[in-house]
């Protein structure tokens, strides 16, 4: 069907010699060599010619059936492995990164709180608070290294990690300076502590929040990707099954045979694959949905609550350390207020709202109980804080400090209870998330390989089934 390409370059020949040089498969007109489009037209015409006879028709049907089921299997394998890899990402990567980012965020906030608490306790600082601070800084550095090696170099996260890596040593340097001045009994120590807190709240925590938001966003996106319904596979399944049924019906009409074993096998294999796909994906979606709604959504609120409680505690300590050094005008009332007391109230407001949302999401159960405990401790914290402020305003600074840092009657104790309840809830919800996400992933495991095998079985069945009919014509 190919026409020699050197025809045009050949010297003009006598009309009589032209047919001798044309291809043995003679075209419709020997003078005009056929073009490529004409070759395609020729192909369809051949097909049309073949469709005119029953064996030809059967061959076409067999080829179409084999092609359809193989396509169904291939597309299913492709879509399912995409969902599976997304679910795998959720379980093994993005979930870990998001938890790490939450860890960085809360370690930093906790370090700031521990530094302020230790400072207020006086010099030398209580060993426990110093250790808490050291642990927090170590944890933050370690998690930052992990995050840097695991995160794809996509803008927001990378930038945040870079800035955190730059800012952390600056912060710890300021804290060391604050400590050394504090040990000499100089008020400059408190000024350094305030400056360190400013760097923490204005530089580090916002970057940690960006990192956390980016990573939880990626987690949600991966989860969303894993939950997407495989529409192409479903459509191809319906099409393949439809054509299989039609072919069997046609077979039945022409031969009066009820079953064609090959075609029945092909239909069964396709049906099994469709059901497996449907059930597996539905169950996976259900699990992944639970991971998101019963795990991740609560984790977000609980993490928010944790960060706000830490901020509130740092500010409460700083109110006692700064001694009215920083006064800000309230933008609404125009009244001068202590900056740290104001920031404390803001953080407590956020904490209260986050706890309320977390309680609603928990909807009873052990986590609901823990969040309830956190809310009770929150109320106690607020009322004790009021007492401490009253003591301070009345000029009894020592009593105020005691109410903030010492013993079971202190705001520090209430804060500790909020923390404990939140940590328990976070652990619980993290486990919930992991359980659901892993279950979701397992629903999809084996499906891609299964799709390939079943599609091959179905294709073989179709080809054999049609082949058997064809053999009757020989």
């Amino acid at each position, binding site marked *: 069907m190919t026409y020699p390409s050197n025809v045009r370059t050949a010297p003009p020949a006598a009309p009589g010699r032209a047919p001798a040089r044309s291809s043995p498969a003679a075209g419709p007109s020997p003078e005009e060599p056929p073009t490529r489009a004409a070759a395609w037209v020729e192909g369809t015409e051949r097909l049309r010619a073949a469709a005119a006879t029953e064996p030809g028709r059967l061959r076409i049907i067999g080829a179409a059936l084999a092609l359809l089921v193989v396509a169904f299997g291939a597309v299913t394998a492709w879509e399912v492995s995409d969902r599976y890899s997304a679910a795998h990402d959720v379980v093994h990567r993005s979930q870990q990164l998001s938890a790490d980012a939450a860890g960085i965020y809360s370690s930093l906030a906790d370090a700031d709180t521990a530094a302020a608490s230790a400072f207020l306790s006086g010099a030398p600082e209580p060993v426990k608070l110093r250790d808490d601070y050291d642990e927090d800084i170590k944890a933050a550095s370690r998690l930052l290294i992990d995050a840097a090696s695991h995160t794809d170099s996509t803008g927001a996260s990378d930038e945040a990690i870079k800035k955190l890596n730059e800012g952390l040593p600056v912060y710890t340097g300021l804290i060391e300076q604050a400590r050394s001045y504090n040990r000499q009994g100089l008020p400059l120590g*408190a*000024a350094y502590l305030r400056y360190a807190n400013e760097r923490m709240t204005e530089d580090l925590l916002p970057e940690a929040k960006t990192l956390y938001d980016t990573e939880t966003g990626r987690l949600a996106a991966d989860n969303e990707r894993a939950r997407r319904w495989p529409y192409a596979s479903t459509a191809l399944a319906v099409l393949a099954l439809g054509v299989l049924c039609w072919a069997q019906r046609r077979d039945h009409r022409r031969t009066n045979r009820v079953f064609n074993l090959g075609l029945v096998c092909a239909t069964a294999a396709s049906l099994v694959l469709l059901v497996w796909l449907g059930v597996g994906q539905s169950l996976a979606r259900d699990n992944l949905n639970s991971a998101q709604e019963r795990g991740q959504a609560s984790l977000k609120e609980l993490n928010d609550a944790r960060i706000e409680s830490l901020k509130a505690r740092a500010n409460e300590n700083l109110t006692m350390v700064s001694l009215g050094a920083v006064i800000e005008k309230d933008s609404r009332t125009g009244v001068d207020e202590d900056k740290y007391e104001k920031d404390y109230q803001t953080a407590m407001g956020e904490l209260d709202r986050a706890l309320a949302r977390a309680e609603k999401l928990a909807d009873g159960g052990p986590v609901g109980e823990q969040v309830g405990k956190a809310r009770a401790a929150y109320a106690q914290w607020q009322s004790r804080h009021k007492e401490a402020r009253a003591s301070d305003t009345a000029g009894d*600074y020592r009593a105020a400090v005691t109410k903030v840092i010492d013993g079971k009657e202190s705001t520090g104790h209430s804060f500790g209870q909020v923390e404990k309840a939140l940590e328990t809830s976070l652990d619980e919800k993290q486990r919930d998330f992991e359980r659901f996400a892993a279950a979701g992933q397992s629903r999809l495991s084996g499906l891609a390989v299964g799709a390939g095998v079943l599609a091959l079985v179905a294709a073989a069945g179709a080809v054999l089934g049609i082949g058997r009919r064809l053999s009757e014509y020989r």
Partner: protein
Amino acid sequence: MTTRDSLRRLRGLRRNGGFRGWGGVMAMVVACVLTGSLTLLPLSRSVGQDAADFAQQRISTAVPVVAEDCDLLESAVRPSSADGNAIKTIKARKVPKLVVGIDQNSYGWGYRNPLTKELEGFDIDLVRAIAEEIFGDPDAVTYRAVTTGQRVDALNGREGKDGSVDLVVRTMSISCERKKQVLFSDAYFETGLQVLAPKGSAITGYDRSLKDKRVCSATGSSADAKLKTESYGAQRVLVPNQLDCLVRLQLGMADAIMTDNSLAAGLMAQDPAIERAGAQLPKEYYGVAAMKDNTDLIARVNKVLRDYSAGGDNSRWTQSYRKWLAKGLPGLTGPPKAG
């Protein structure tokens, strides 16, 4: 107030032998005008005001030290140890303690020692001396932290019940404007604005050497006001508290600090690597302030101040100064003197 009171007041003036040159003549004119206006416009003063207090009041005779139309150095009331209305009210309280507005962040003046958690400083010593004079107990004080902006309102009861104070002893500069709002004691300390820079800096003081330099001062402070009117091309760095300026300077975020000389002493005591650049700007004076009507209280404070500075080198003023301020602010021998 009656005409007799005013006459007595005039007599008081003469008895103190205050007439000197034009200042005396001016004072007399002022006294006449005052007498006239007071007789014509009876003021609603609180009842039961001790006549003795008024006898001790006098119109200042000292020539104003700053080009302002009032005397910054001397109080409007004379020292007295009599318990007037204000003191009687304080003593009759459920908790008979003096409520004093102080600062907790000015090293050497009024600050909370982070190690002992106690208040310390020159101002705190003075507060204790006042409490000892009134109650015989230096600890009969409720300290209340007040900010620069709250001082006048806290005295006049506008900061609410929990925020009001009897006295403010908080590096408070005496000014004619403030004298209209509160009653000041005699001046107990002399200061002025001062530029501070790291040793070896090219900055030579409040002058053109500040051009393109970052100069730090506290928001709303008199140093900030001064830099706003004339900055010599300096870039202003504003922080909540003058102590924060030292942090900025140490971290290389500012090239110089501008603050009160007396507070500069506190900064220099915490960082030996900074020094004064150039001379101190025109003088200002610190005074103890009370509500305008509490004349007996300020008369009592003035008595404390008089006793406080008596004794030359061994006066309590000098002892307190040596303990808290001499290191960063050497060379003073006593409180500023009137006249």
